[in-house]
């Protein structure tokens, strides 16, 4: 089985625990072998690259150097912010001079460049939505209307990220559709939610996240589905602040795509951390179960009507 060097990222141990636990559970169920990078450290996130690119690359590169000993096919991470830092470091270190400078800051230098991918990319490319659809022929998420939200940096800039489309990514749409969900054409897929300004400038986050929630609600979504811990936190934890900024009350659950994938695969809710979401996910799941029941009823009724017609004809 192909082995991947897994980089969970700091938020995976805190505010996005449920993303980490659902990612691990889903990968296990789909045969994607994750091995944690031993003693991984913080990639520096946004703060490091706002200070200096050498510092930021070195913080990311310490982890790339550790992963080299693992003989893995790629370094993979669920978090787009970590992904950007790791990928930008690899990209910049293709310049020999810069690589030497980075290595001077490290105890263990980076020798080779291991490919870096998001978990989403691995699920989309190595497993594939067709295989997922085949595994789950009875479409467990039928009736669930989703606004897919990728966040701004998972696919941009395209020269560095090299995955999916930078204006209209579809990897997550396809996975969700494979499970039977109705994926809405969400126009703000790659717009920024306010990023890491939640603490110092929550007014900005409330406004930008408010716009996203408004657009999703306007499409009639039951929920937003995302692949980014920061986006999830801004839209879910700060939904009250966003509601206030927009002058209306939103009640939109914000799932990680791995939680929905896990739910469809029959992974226990406790492992998926559904209870860790702030906006109660029941709202969306009840709507989905109601739609499924209604559909079954409709089908039963039309079947019964057919039988009656047949009986009459006979």
């Amino acid at each position: 089985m192909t082995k991947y060097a897994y980089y969970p990222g700091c938020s995976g141990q805190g505010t996005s625990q449920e993303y980490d636990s659902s990612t691990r559970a889903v990968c296990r169920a789909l045969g994607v072998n994750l091995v944690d990078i031993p003693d991984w450290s913080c990639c520096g996130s946004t703060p490091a690259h706002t200070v200096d690119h050498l510092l930021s690359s070195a913080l990311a590169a310490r982890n790339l150097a550790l992963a080299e000993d693992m003989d893995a096919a790629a370094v993979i991470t669920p978090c787009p912010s970590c992904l950007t830092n790791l990928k930008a470091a690899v990209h910049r270190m293709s310049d020999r001079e810069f690589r030497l400078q980075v290595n001077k800051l490290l105890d263990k230098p980076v020798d080779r460049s291991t490919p870096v991918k998001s978990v989403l990319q691995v699920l989309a490319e190595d497993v594939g939505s067709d295989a997922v659809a085949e595994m789950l022929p009875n479409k467990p998420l039928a009736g669930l209307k989703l606004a897919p939200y990728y966040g701004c940096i998972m696919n941009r800039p395209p020269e560095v990220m090299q995955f999916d489309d930078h204006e209209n990514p579809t990897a997550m749409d396809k996975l969700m559709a494979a499970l039977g969900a109705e994926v809405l054409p969400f126009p703000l897929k790659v717009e920024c939610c306010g990023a890491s300004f939640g603490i110092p400038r929550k007014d900005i986050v409330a406004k930008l996240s408010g716009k996203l929630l408004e657009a999703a609600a306007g499409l009639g979504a039951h929920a937003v589905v995302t692949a980014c811990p920061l986006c999830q936190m801004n839209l879910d934890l700060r939904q009250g602040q966003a509601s206030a900024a927009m002058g209306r009350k939103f009640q939109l659950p914000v799932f990680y795509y791995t939680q929905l994938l896990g739910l469809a695969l029959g992974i226990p809710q406790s492992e998926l951390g559904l209870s860790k979401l702030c906006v109660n996910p029941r709202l969306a799941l009840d709507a989905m179960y109601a739609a499924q029941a209604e559909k079954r009823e409709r089908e039963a009724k039309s079947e019964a009507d057919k039988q009656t017609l047949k009986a009459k004809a006979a």
Partner: protein
Amino acid sequence: MEVVDIHASCDHEFIAQVEAESEQKVRLCYQCGNCTAGCPYTFAYDIPVSQVMRLLQAGQKVRLLSCKSIWLCATCESCTTRCPNEIDVARIMDVLRHMARREGYATEKNVKTFWDTFLDSVEKHGRVFEMGLLATYVAKTGRFWTDMDLGPKILPKGKLSFKPHEIQGKDKVAEIFKRFRETQQ
């Protein structure tokens, strides 16, 4: 309208420095405004990103290093992705922020404090310690009331640890910071 006398105040050295650090050609910008059109932060900026580019071409160092926009740019990469001249605009914003820091400007003080506190946490523990980060940020800025409404929402979820996740190699991480500072001297 503010009129800039570009002959008197154009700092050519500044332009050259931004070009070198960002590896971008500032003169390629032809002011199409695509970057500003896609920038989600324009409403909060004091100078829209395309005007940052224009002022940069005109070598307006102080005006740029003291603006708010460079602290509020979220590096969302929309400008970089959409620039018809393939200028990595987000990288230029980053570089301006680096220079502003080095020269002692911090127009959005709380943003800078938040980032600094985050990095202090990484330097100390090897990974960021979210609860400690919040506590230190509040202590430094005195903004106790910030996000009071969120406490009851997040605390019962048991996601925020009250203890840092120390790693074995935390000294190695601290060394990275130390060696980096040495390169800056």
